[in-house]
């Protein structure tokens, strides 16, 4: 299968899965660097472990399903799933948490539905939701940004915690971990504290969570690069971010005590990685242009609804999966008319 061999010179405009996945990974690099800077080396350990498990699981499933292993393994889709899932889970997570999530994503969400191109749900988000529902304690022990932490997470410490659960000295996860900005916003609003007062706390930065606004900014930049390279179209991110902005703007005007500002919503949690890297999944998302606008808008709306009235601080993963379910319906009703047909 020479078509999968990667050797220059590339044809201009060549467009296949491996190249697209490589572009996606490249676009993630700045945000990953930012996450390592703010949350420590655990992020890198998570990514390495997740990629290794994903490749092993993918190879095993391809063998069981009697599909050619090498071309499918090198298409990079399993790596992208693994990296997205690794970025979504807390920066210091035990090894089994990452493993369970990745295996479930690859085996159940991807291969049981037929493998790449056939999965109706975004595998990374299915893995994430499985972990969030099954292991709520581990999935909500986030670290505060490094400048606020008692002890920044170095590489040895991260490896030690991920694989043995041990932290050096008298440190425990309880002393290291803290609420995320979205968490803090949600709990304190339920205690009737006004959002603008909450925003003055040290956990928050210029217009969103400290650190988080930069991570989101770099995801945004990586996403713009992907649009420029035509790996993704602008429809889903623009519709999702636009809807989130408009609806949080409306509530900002009529009920400012309900939730944070539009900028807070745009640069918090998983908004930007969701808009550019997760909701734009070409397989599980809508395929028509009009459908992509509806799909993105739905994800933005549901994210806001879950963040404000739901039981979880962030809602991007649930929003994407719920909208994945509607994709066949959206595609059916937004089928463009065939040229010349009435």
């Amino acid at each position, binding site marked *: 299968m020479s078509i999968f061999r990667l050797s220059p010179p590339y044809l201009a405009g060549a467009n296949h899965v491996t190249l697209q996945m490589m572009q996606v990974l490249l676009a993630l690099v700045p945000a990953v660097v930012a996450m390592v800077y703010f949350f420590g080396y655990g992020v890198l350990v998570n990514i390495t472990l997740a990629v290794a498990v994903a490749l092993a699981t993918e190879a095993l499933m391809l063998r069981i399903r009697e599909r050619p292993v090498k071309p499918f393994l090198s298409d990079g889709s399993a790596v992208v799933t693994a990296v997205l899932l690794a970025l979504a889970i807390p920066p210091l997570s035990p090894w089994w948490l990452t493993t*369970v999530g990745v295996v479930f994503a690859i085996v*159940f969400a991807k291969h049981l539905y037929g493998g790449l191109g056939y999965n109706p749900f975004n595998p990374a988000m299915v893995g994430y939701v*499985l972990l969030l*529902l*099954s*292991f*709520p304690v581990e999935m909500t022990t986030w670290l505060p940004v490094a400048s606020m932490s008692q002890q920044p997470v170095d590489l040895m410490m991260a490896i030690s915690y991920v694989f043995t659960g041990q932290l050096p000295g008298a440190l425990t996860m309880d002393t290291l971990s803290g609420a995320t900005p979205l968490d803090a916003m949600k709990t304190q609003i339920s205690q009737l504290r006004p959002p603008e007062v909450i925003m003055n706390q040290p956990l928050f930065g210029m217009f969103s969570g400290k650190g988080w606004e930069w991570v989101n900014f770099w995801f945004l930049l990586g996403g713009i690069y992907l649009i420029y390279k035509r790996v993704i179209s602008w429809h889903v991110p623009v519709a999702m971010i636009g809807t989130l902005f408009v609806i949080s703007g409306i509530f900002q005007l009529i009920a400012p005590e309900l939730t944070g500002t539009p900028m807070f919503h745009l640069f918090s949690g998983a908004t930007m990685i969701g808009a550019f890297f997760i909701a734009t999944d070409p397989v599980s998302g809508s395929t028509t242009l009009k459908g992509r606008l509806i799909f993105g808008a739905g994800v933005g709306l549901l994210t806001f609804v879950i963040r404000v009235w739901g039981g979880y601080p962030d809602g991007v993963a649930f929003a994407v999966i719920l909208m994945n379910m509607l994709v066949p319906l959206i595609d059916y009703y937004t089928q463009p008319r065939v040229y010349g047909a009435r």
Partner: protein
Amino acid sequence: MSVYRQLSYEGLWKNNPALVQLLGLCPLLAVTNTMINGLGLGLATILTLVASNGLISLLRNHIPDEARLPVFVMVIASIVTIIELSMSAWFHELYLILGIFIPLIVTNCAIIGRAEAYASRNPVAPSLVDGFMMGIGFTAVLVLLGGMRELVGQGTLLSQAELMFGEAARGFQIVIFEDYRGFLMAMLPPGAFIGLGLIVALKNTIDARVNRRQAKLSKAATEAATA
């Protein structure tokens, strides 16, 4: 193959109500979070199936064809009420856990399905066997699925056996994984769907293997015969 062997094969494997007919999925999925819950509901279903098949077979020549479904439902409902009251009297704790799913046995399609498809057109003895074997097939899946979900979900087997077998059974619980932190998804409804899907897939794989081997054997036999 004798009638009874055929009935056993149909009920336990080939026409298993849970794996092939996919009947009675609501209780099947809802109460199988532990092995004992599955077993409890399974035994109640076996009793109902045997009793309803027997009664309907006895009455089959007196039931007018036009009104057969209401009659079936009334017969089944009476039997289920008897079982429900008995369970409440003797296995009250288990009755509380299984809750609404005991009265809902009335609506289990597997039961009215056997009444319609078998008991209403066959003599009493084979009908009783059919009900029993279908019930065993259903219960086997309930117990297997309950065991899988309990094992993955909380790392034990046969926990809360005392609900069914009395205080002496408190020690029946087998802890497979010590210090297990639990896997909530297996205990939640999605775990039931995924678990049942895996069991159905396993059955289909076994069937496909057996068919392939038989095809090979019969081919070899015909070749031997022609040669």
